[in-house]
């Protein structure tokens, strides 16, 4: 674990060793997040690389008084993923491993259902359920009021529950 202020001080000062250590500690979870957000492991790797590269090149914007470094990192990655989704053409085929990988490797019906949610819903649920961000942190990451976080989480859960129970048609996972 890292002390956010001290770590940020080192990264801002160009300490490549500190940055690399932070990368190794935080990247696996970020990649899992991006992988589920995009449905593509190569895209997740690219976005993860872009996220860290952007932070390393321009270490600006993190305010320890507003949130955690991890939350800030995931917020940047979420924006990168949203931009990635915008670049995808509606006619683009789904990734080859979509969503079979979740079934074959995790044997999880829920993970399959999760991949059918809208990207924003997946991002929010993942950040809450897997990363454990509080409502306040999610409000900072998403730049929305806490009440909106609450209502969106509920909507995302309902969407997942519907798909999970087969009560709703597939949304296709495309925004």
């Amino acid at each position, binding site marked *: 674990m890292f002390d956010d202020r001290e770590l940020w001080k080192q990264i801002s000062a160009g300490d490549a060793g500190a940055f690399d250590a932070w990368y190794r500690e935080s990247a696996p979870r970020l990649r*899992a997040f991006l992988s589920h957000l995009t449905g593509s492991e190569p895209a997740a790797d690219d976005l993860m690389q872009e996220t860290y590269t952007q932070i390393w090149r321009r270490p600006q914007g993190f305010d320890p008084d507003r949130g955690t470094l991890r939350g800030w990192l995931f917020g940047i990655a979420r924006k990168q993923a949203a931009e990635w989704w915008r670049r995808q053409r509606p006619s683009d085929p789904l990734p080859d491993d979509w969503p079979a990988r979740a079934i074959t490797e995790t044997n999880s019906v*829920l993970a399959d259902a999760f991949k059918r949610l809208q990207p924003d819903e997946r991002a929010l649920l993942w950040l809450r359920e897997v990363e454990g961000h509080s409502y306040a942190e999610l409000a900072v990451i998403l730049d929305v009021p806490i009440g909106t976080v609450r209502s969106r989480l509920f909507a995302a859960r309902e969407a997942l529950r519907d798909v999970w129970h087969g009560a709703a048609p597939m949304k296709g996972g495309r925004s």
Partner: protein
Amino acid sequence: MTNDDPRNCPCDETAEYVSSLADGETIPPTFAQHIGACAACQTRLTDYLAMGAELRRVASLEVDAPLPALPIEKRRTTRSLWQKGLETMRIPKFAFALLILAVVALASSLTMVKVGAHSSGSVLMLNFTGPDGNPHQCFFDTTKKDYPCGFFGPMAATSVGFDFRTLARNGDDIQLGLRSAAYPIGSPEANHMGNALVDNLPEVRYSFEVGQVLKINVEGLGTLTIKGEWTDHVPTLITDAQAQLDPKPDQVRILSPLLLKDNQVIGDMAGGMTSDDDRSQAVWINYANVGRFLISSAPMKGAVQAYAQLNRVSFQIDGENYVLLTGAPVSRSEKIWVLYQPGFKLPNGPDNFITSVDLKQIAPEAVLPQNSLGK
């Protein structure tokens, strides 16, 4: 009526609070009371909790995958070992800019012992391919500090320049530094491709494990795929994609040349090596306080005919006998040509270097009519 009766159960209004409850939040007493008595709301809560647990379980399966290399370019400018190394390189920046064959290390088919990904091998063989799929290689002796490898030349219809160096090794983990440039062939930048250009670009650092594939996006080129293997030595001939003991037709290959004049050593280029591959090119050897020797398989204006036999080239200039001794056979033909330019020195360049060049670019005055240069 009971709370199970949908007509009496404000589940729609309560559902959002079920979600909050699943997140560990406290909720207003009215809704808390309803949830306690409503089977539907409790089922919803159970579902929410199960969904969260399942997502965390799935996530737990995914966080152990190996990390890809992270590019970290230096933000602060310091005088690096690489820069120090450049100052002592045998091949000058200027000469690099002139290179057409521009090869420091290229693919080699020499037999060598590949010692596996996990080994005590000290020489890293870096295999890299661009979008065109053509293989290239660099070799790094990781026991030595600052062991750079450069590649300058065409790749996938693009003029590229790569300066690789190994920064650190920890077992099979290698930290690689790379400066890279890629420009369309024919562009002004491509015409000046070389160390002088690439050296001014930021160095990007990559961590990768020998045996694993590293993919790097090079702006202007596309994906550069790199894979490392350990070998037991740096191959002797690293200048030729199909390196054999016999030179190729029209090739002039010079390894570690020692120059004798009337049986006295006047120049020594230990370790330097290069080759030209056709008659429009020449090997350029520059010896300090001696001058420039251009050696080609084709006649050149002002050149003398030399006699090449195995690893020695004999020629006579102004009545004095010269012998160039090298580490391998020089040419298939016994007749090659040597143009000597005494006292030649590159402005701001090092005194000793060896490289291959397009004769038209570096000594157009020596080019004979086209029919003399044709194959």
